[in-house]
């Protein structure tokens, strides 16, 4: 394999990489070589690539700031085509053979970006720039401003193809969840796990050990060895699980956590049997946060030039990846930690031109550094970084702002102190508490006993203290849960004396000093926002976008708050923090969707006769979760023709329609009739056994809720039907009243929708057809089974129910048999009906037939209409009380001005009606359009010979014969229509009684 030289790879060291396994990858079309164990960031640095992106607003060159997931700068587009993912952090991408990545937000190229002229105008692009500039005229928004903003200030490009990856969901229950696999987390998992408690140790990166460095000693051995031993010990515990590449990003009520596991992201391609990522839901009895601390950048002029890195990141790249981030690395700090970086650099033979320490007095470590020959300068701050695509020098200043010296360097390691990583723990809403001694927010954990913290995430920075803290916390947590804990000693490390930290928020300067790198927010922006009155921290955040990027401001929040506090002359805790919200890290939308996408988005419900419909070539329509046959096209027939034919032939011969999806609820009990009386507007007490009745129910506010026929099968036994759409809502409505309001009623009910399947057999030959089907098993004569009659009978050894009800207005029967017999029933009916030219008809023809008959359906029951609006006011019983009656008597609900149900047809018979069109007054006369009502349903009616419709119009029946204009603004159609009776077919009902 041809490999490229890696100019900045050190000859020795690198605990994470395997030099024997070179990997090729490409960045912006150019190929490079790295090693297995590299991140994309470390591999780029090994190849001397510091410039990896352009900034959000000003298109400034940006490099790699961190070595971990809080990276604000090094965001790249990873992979190609449908797999392309924007804004992935180069610091967390594990290198694999053939990796392809591209830089973002640059045009035309990374090195030469024409939009970087933005920075020349940057004095006009400060805080709230978008709010101020793109305000007027509003007509410019879509065509001009939005396009400009999207082009100029964007992150990566999302893939335009459907996500080809698979995602899974998983669930866990554990006694103790330990979040973070560093020193404190490992110690906590060890002591908790040994007690026998079920422990999950969650670590975001592929490796355990957190920020432990090569030189740390634990229990007398190098830290790496201790980590290996501890891992082995944990793996031997049967109830303890170690999860790596497992990032906990959400913390919810009741100690419920969400985590994302990167199963295939580190591989060139995810194997077929694995998902790319798994979304885990963890229900933990107790949780120990060991999320560590994040180093803060230092805010000084030009602190964003590629080559400026966090001191801890410099150390990590040198130690773990054997990468020299520079030939000459200057260091600027306000605390002791950066000295360890200096020692690591020294070990690797990298030049340190200066270590600028903002603290006035030397500490033990600075003395040691001096003895090692490092040029330590106290009371010295960075003033300005120099260079364009890479740092070339650093100017230093004294604390009073006086220029001190200019130092040549090609990398600057900065440390502004450590902020405990409180973003996850604070998601529950408790604001963290400020500790002046360490200049950092720590979590407030007093209020709940189910959470604990260990190590740096609550301000314990010394390694020995972290180990002790984690171990104690694990032990205590297990004990609280009732597990036996053998007394063991905690792992220990040599204690180190720690010097104090010195506040260093904004080094004096007049240039661009970045606070939030990802959103290009400078210290000046914060001052400007404050001057303009955005003084609350939440307002500041939204106005300047500080901390609003995908990194959630993990490197910028504390610096930003401190600068705001200084500007206001307040203390940092007085200014306070913004709220933390999940997810703590970006999570692919696909992971949330899991398997529930495409055809698996929701369950599909098919009726018992589904296969029969398929055989007849049905085109299906989704009705909620149900698949219903919409129409059955014959060869060469389009939808309109099929619907027209089906509707026509039902009225001529006979048709069969699957009505299984109607909601069915069986009611039992002494008070079942009384319960129905209260649910429906019409009465049920006098309904005889063996009869059905049409019922209408209202909501409590008086508007119509649902309708359907309900049959009395026995004295205390009813079968209610609901519309398909409202089946679940009606059941819940009934449960509410039976369980919470009228608990004294003796009524019990349950859904029977999926227990009984049903067909409607309609048309003049319906009786002849069913006679041939049932062959005397039930008497179908008009005398034995009149209109609205109901019979239960035995047919071929199973119970069947027949209802003489009609939605179409034809002679019609509904037949129900137990669900499993649906297919057999369908086939018998089709066989017997062949002699009568029977056809199957779908929901569209059903709709045509009911409109012709003037029957209301979903479009008329739109949640706003009353029984009287529908022309069903006569059903309102005056002899009883029912749900919705009191509020249906309100003035507005009974106003004569309310539109009510009418029929409508075009004056010119060839014209088409549109559902949703409005009846309007004479436009020419008034100049202002006023709606008189609307068309709710339309159909191309074979029976009438033109388009017909149902609708609501002011004045209702009194307008019959009147001609009005129907306006359909969606197509700007205006046609003349005639208002007519809503019953177009068989107004006397001779057909359905026949």
């Amino acid at each position: 394999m041809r490999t490229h030289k890696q100019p900045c790879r050190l000859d020795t060291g690198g605990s994470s990489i395997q030099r024997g396994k070179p990997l090729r990858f490409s960045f912006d079309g150019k190929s490079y070589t790295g090693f297995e164990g590299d991140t994309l960031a470390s591999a780029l640095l090994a190849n001397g690539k510091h410039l990896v992106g352009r900034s959000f607003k000003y298109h400034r060159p940006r490099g790699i700031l961190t070595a971990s997931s809080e990276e604000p700068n090094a965001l790249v587009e990873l992979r190609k085509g449908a797999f392309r993912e924007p804004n992935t952090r180069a610091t967390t991408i594990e290198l694999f053979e053939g990796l392809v990545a591209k830089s973002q937000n640059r045009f035309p190229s990374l090195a030469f970006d024409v939009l970087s002229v933005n920075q020349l105008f940057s004095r006009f692009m400060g805080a709230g720039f978008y709010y101020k500039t793109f305000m007027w005229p509003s007509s410019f928004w879509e065509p001009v401003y939005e396009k400009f903003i999207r082009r100029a200030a964007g992150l990566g490009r999302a893939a335009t193809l459907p996500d080809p990856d698979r995602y899974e969901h998983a669930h866990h229950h554990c006694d103790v969840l330990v979040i973070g696999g560093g020193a404190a987390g490992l110690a906590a998992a060890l002591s908790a796990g040994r007690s026998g408690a079920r422990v999950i140790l969650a670590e975001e990166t592929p490796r355990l050990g957190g920020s432990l460095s090569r030189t740390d000693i634990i229990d007398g051995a190098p830290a790496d060895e201790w980590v290996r031993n501890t891992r082995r010990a944990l793996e031997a515990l049967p109830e303890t699980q170690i999860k790596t590449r497992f990032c906990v990003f959400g913390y919810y009520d009741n100690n419920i956590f969400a985590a994302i596991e990167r199963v295939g992201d580190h591989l060139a391609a995810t194997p077929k049997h694995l998902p790319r990522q798994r979304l885990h839901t963890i229900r933990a009895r107790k949780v120990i946060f060991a999320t560590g601390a994040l180093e803060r950048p230092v805010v000084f002029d030009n602190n964003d030039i590629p080559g400026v890195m966090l001191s801890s990141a410099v150390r990590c790249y040198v130690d773990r990846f054997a990468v020299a981030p520079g030939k000459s690395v200057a260091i600027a700090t306000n605390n002791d930690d950066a000295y360890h970086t200096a020692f690591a650099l020294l070990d690797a033979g990298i030049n340190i031109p200066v270590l600028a320490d903002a603290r006035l007095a030397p500490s033990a470590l600075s003395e040691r550094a001096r003895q090692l020959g490092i040029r330590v300068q106290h009371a010295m701050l960075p003033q300005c970084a120099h260079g364009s695509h890479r740092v070339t020098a650093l100017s230093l200043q004294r604390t009073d702002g006086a220029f001190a010296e200019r130092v040549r360097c090609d990398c600057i390691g900065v440390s502004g102190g450590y902020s405990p990583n409180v973003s996850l723990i604070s998601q529950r809403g408790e604001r963290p508490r400020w500790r002046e001694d360490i200049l950092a927010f720590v979590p407030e954990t007093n209020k709940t006993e189910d959470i604990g913290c260990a190590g740096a995430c609550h301000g314990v920075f010394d390694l020995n203290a972290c180990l002790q803290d984690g171990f104690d916390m694990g032990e205590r947590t297990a004990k609280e849960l009732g597990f036996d804990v053998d007394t063991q000693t905690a792992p220990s490390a040599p204690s180190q004396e720690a010097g104090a930290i010195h506040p260093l928020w904004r080094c004096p300067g007049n240039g661009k000093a970045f606070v939030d790198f990802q959103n290009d927010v400078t210290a000046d922006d914060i001052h400007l926002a404050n001057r303009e009155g955005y003084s609350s921290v939440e307002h500041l955040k939204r106005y300047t976008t500080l901390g609003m990027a995908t990194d959630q401001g993990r490197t910028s929040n504390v610096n930003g708050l401190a600068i705001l506090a200084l500007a206001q002359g307040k203390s940092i805790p007085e200014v306070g923090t913004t709220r933390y919200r999940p997810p703590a890290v970006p999570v692919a939308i696909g992971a949330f969707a899991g398997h529930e996408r495409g055809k698996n988005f929701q369950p599909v419900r098919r009726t018992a006769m589904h296969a029969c419909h398929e055989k007849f070539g049905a085109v299906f329509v989704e009705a909620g979760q149900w698949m219903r046959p919409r129409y059955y096209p014959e060869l060469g027939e389009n939808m309109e023709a099929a619907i027209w034919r089906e509707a026509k032939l039902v009225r001529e011969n006979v048709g069969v329609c699957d009505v299984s999806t109607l909601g069915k609820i069986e009611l039992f009990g002494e008070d079942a009739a009384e319960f129905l009386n209260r649910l429906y507007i019409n009465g049920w007490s006098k309904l005889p056994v063996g009869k059905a009745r049409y019922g209408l129910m209202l909501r409590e506010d008086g508007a119509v809720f649902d309708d359907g026929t309900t049959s009395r099968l026995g004295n205390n036994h009813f079968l209610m039907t609901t519309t398909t759409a409202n089946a679940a809502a009606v059941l819940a409505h009934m449960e509410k009243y039976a369980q919470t309001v009228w608990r004294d009623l003796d009524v019990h009910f349950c859904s029977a929708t999926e227990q009984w399947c049903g067909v409607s057999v309609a048309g003049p030959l319906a009786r002849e057809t069913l006679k041939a089907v049932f062959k005397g098993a039930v008497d179908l004569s008009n005398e034995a089974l009149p209109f609205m009659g109901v019979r239960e009978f035995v047919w071929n050894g199973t119970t069947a129910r027949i209802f003489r009800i009609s939605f179409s207005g034809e002679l019609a029967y509904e037949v129900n048999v137990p669900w499993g017999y649906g297919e057999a029933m369908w086939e018998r009916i089709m066989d017997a009906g062949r002699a009568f030219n029977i056809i199957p008809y779908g929901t569209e023809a059903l709709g045509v037939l009911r409109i012709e008959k003037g029957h209301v359906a979903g479009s008329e029951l739109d949640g706003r209409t009353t029984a009287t609006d529908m022309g069903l006011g006569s059903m309102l019983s005056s002899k009883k009380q029912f749900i919705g009656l009191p509020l249906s008597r309100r003035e507005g609900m009974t106003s004569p001005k309310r539109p009510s149900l009418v029929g409508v047809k075009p004056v010119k018979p060839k014209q088409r009606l549109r559902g949703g069109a409005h009846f309007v007054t004479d436009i020419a006369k008034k100049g202002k359009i006023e709606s008189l009502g609307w068309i709710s349903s339309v159909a191309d009616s074979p029976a009438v010979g033109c388009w017909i419709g149902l609708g609501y119009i002011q004045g209702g029946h009194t307008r019959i014969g009147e001609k009005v204009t129907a306006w359909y603004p969606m197509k700007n159609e205006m046609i003349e229509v005639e208002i007519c009776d809503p019953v177009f077919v068989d107004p006397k009902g001779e057909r359905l009684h026949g």
Partner: protein
Amino acid sequence: MHRIKCPFCGERDESEYIYQGDASVSHPPFDASIGDFYRYVYVRDNPKGWHREWWHHVGGCRMWVQVARNTLTHEIYATAPAGGVLDFPEDA
């Protein structure tokens, strides 16, 4: 995610339930005034703190359950079946 103890099924995830509103209002008798019904349907307190609520266990036993829940902290103090006595925090 709430974990709600159903009096019939035991502790279950919130996702098994549907929130059904304020349990402190009760259905007026039918002969009550339109004003009473108006208040029953439309007028609700919006308390910051403890609240009596209905949660319908639709994904379980389908029973309506009374829940004493803190709207600020999401703490659940007690649950009870419909018609039962709901323990309610004294400071509320």
